[in-house]
């Protein structure tokens, strides 16, 4: 199986099928990250599509020294944050996400299998968006603090503070939710 770097190289030589392989390899991860940052399936789908488009057009700027997945996921996080800014204000968006519990199962409902994950996702949406992006890139995607800092264009110390605050907030909210 060709490595990501080899596929990128082939893509830059004009082999479009190589990019298709990259998409097939990472489309679920890109969508998942977008969904967890934005909290809506349709918005996540748009953001994922935009991220792939941007990845394709910026492929010549990709530095093979870093893993392709890291580059792609950082790019996805930035696209999501931009999409978020372009949409409504944080408060309105959070309220909408919190109220979004229709009686019939939505796409989000069907995607989630377990109550715990649903709770966690809902609580994630209560975090400020930059903290949320930092938490997801660090814990969920396994990026390092320096990579997260570069992706979000902030100092490493800020990322550490966000991670601390986010984890503490989630701990408190989970305790309230679970009644412990």
């Amino acid at each position: 199986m060709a490595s990501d770097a080899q596929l990128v190289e082939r893509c830059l030589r004009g082999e479009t099928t190589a990019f298709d392989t990259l998409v097939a390899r990472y489309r679920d991860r890109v969508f998942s990250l977008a969904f967890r940052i934005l909290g809506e399936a349709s918005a996540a789908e748009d953001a994922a599509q935009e991220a792939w488009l941007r990845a394709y057009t910026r492929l010549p700027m990709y530095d093979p020294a870093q893993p392709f997945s890291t580059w792609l996921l950082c790019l996805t996080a930035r696209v999501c944050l931009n999409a978020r800014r372009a949409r409504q204000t944080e408060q309105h968006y959070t309220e909408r996400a919190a109220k979004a519990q229709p009686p019939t199962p939505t796409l989000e409902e069907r995607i989630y299998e377990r109550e715990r994950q649903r709770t966690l996702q809902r609580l994630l949406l209560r975090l400020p968006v930059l903290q949320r992006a930092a938490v997801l890139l660090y814990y969920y995607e396994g990026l390092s603090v320096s990579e997260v800092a570069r992706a979000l264009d902030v100092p490493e110390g800020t990322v550490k503070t966000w991670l601390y605050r986010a984890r503490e907030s989630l701990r408190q909210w989970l305790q309230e939710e679970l009644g412990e």
Partner: protein
Amino acid sequence: MKSACNLLEPLLHAYTEGWLSASDRLRVEQHLRECSACRQKVADWYAVANALRELPTLPAPMPRLPAPEPEPRLVPRLALAMCPVMALLIAWHSSAWRPTLSHLSTYAPPRIITKPLHSYAHTMHRWIAEVQRRWKAF
């Protein structure tokens, strides 16, 4: 103990992430041995981090297909269908293409063509003229 907990809280977080120097790590571990509240907090933080790491990867929906192209409207379709007819008419009206009796005597054996070709053409010509007349009247 409360003030010690408050002072150490940022270090506790760094401890769970493995970001501390050896001396700070020993300090935190010493405190954790003595303080059950902080032990509980550290355990909770680990639980939160693990829950975040274990969030499942979601299946991306299939890419949206582009909208189908609209059906061509009736008028363009009729125009397209009329093209061969128009070509025949133009060819017919041009004298260079119109068959004459001399053509018939050269190319068409009289036994096969029971009716002279020009009579068919004449009928068709009359029919077209009639259609044109009615169209104008309409």
